[in-house]
């Protein structure tokens, strides 16, 4: 189980390869990567992500601990960036390794749903025509209820 909160870019391929490397008992690996997407109207200059140092790591570790308690996982990884990100840059990544695919998928989706609404990050979209904090979606709060 590991947590990394960083401003540095990370390499999805390299992280996936490192995570997948030779662990006994693993039959299924799921990864999720979130990427900065332009607005529907276009013109996004960058995304700025603010976080709460200290609480962020605690919250993510708590979420991972809960995932490990609920599913049969062999390992998990969460990487989440903060700072200024460009369109197409990876924002964050979750990876789960389990004996079976059901556990790997469910735990990855659970981690994502919790990160969306329970990890202290805030996104701001910055464009030439102004900057705007991304609003939380009711759908994200609803997604938590299924767990």
């Amino acid at each position, binding site marked *: 189980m590991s947590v990394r909160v960083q401003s540095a870019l990370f390499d999805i391929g390299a992280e996936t390869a490192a995570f997948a490397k030779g662990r006994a008992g693993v039959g299924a690996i799921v990864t999720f990567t979130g990427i900065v997407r332009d607005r529907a109207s276009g013109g996004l200059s960058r995304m700025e992500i603010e976080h709460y140092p200290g609480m962020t790591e605690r919250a993510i570790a708590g979420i991972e601990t809960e995932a490990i308690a609920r599913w049969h996982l062999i390992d998990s990884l969460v990487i989440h960036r903060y700072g200024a990100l460009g369109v197409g840059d990876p924002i964050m990544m979750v990876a789960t390794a389990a004996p079976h695919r059901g556990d790997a998928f469910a735990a990855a989706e659970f981690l994502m749903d919790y990160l969306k609404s329970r990890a202290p990050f805030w996104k701001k979209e910055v464009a030439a025509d102004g900057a705007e*904090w991304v609003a939380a979606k009711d759908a994200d709060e609803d997604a938590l209820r299924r767990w």
Partner: protein
Amino acid sequence: MIDVLYFAWVRERIGFPKERVETTAATVADLVAELKAREPRYEAAFADLTALRVAVDQTLSTFDAPLAGVREVAFFPPMTGG
């Protein structure tokens, strides 16, 4: 003395990310009332508590949480991670 932290648009409305507050407030809600009485920018930041979340000593909490022994309170909008 409690460290009070602000994030995202709450921070922008207040004008800074952190301050130390001398308070005898019993709960988070009492602290909010004290702050709102100070200056219009606090009034603006705390106008709609349903749009805010609070963490007490780095754990998500509620506005009726007691402040006895608490070292850090943070106010912010709903989180948008992931």
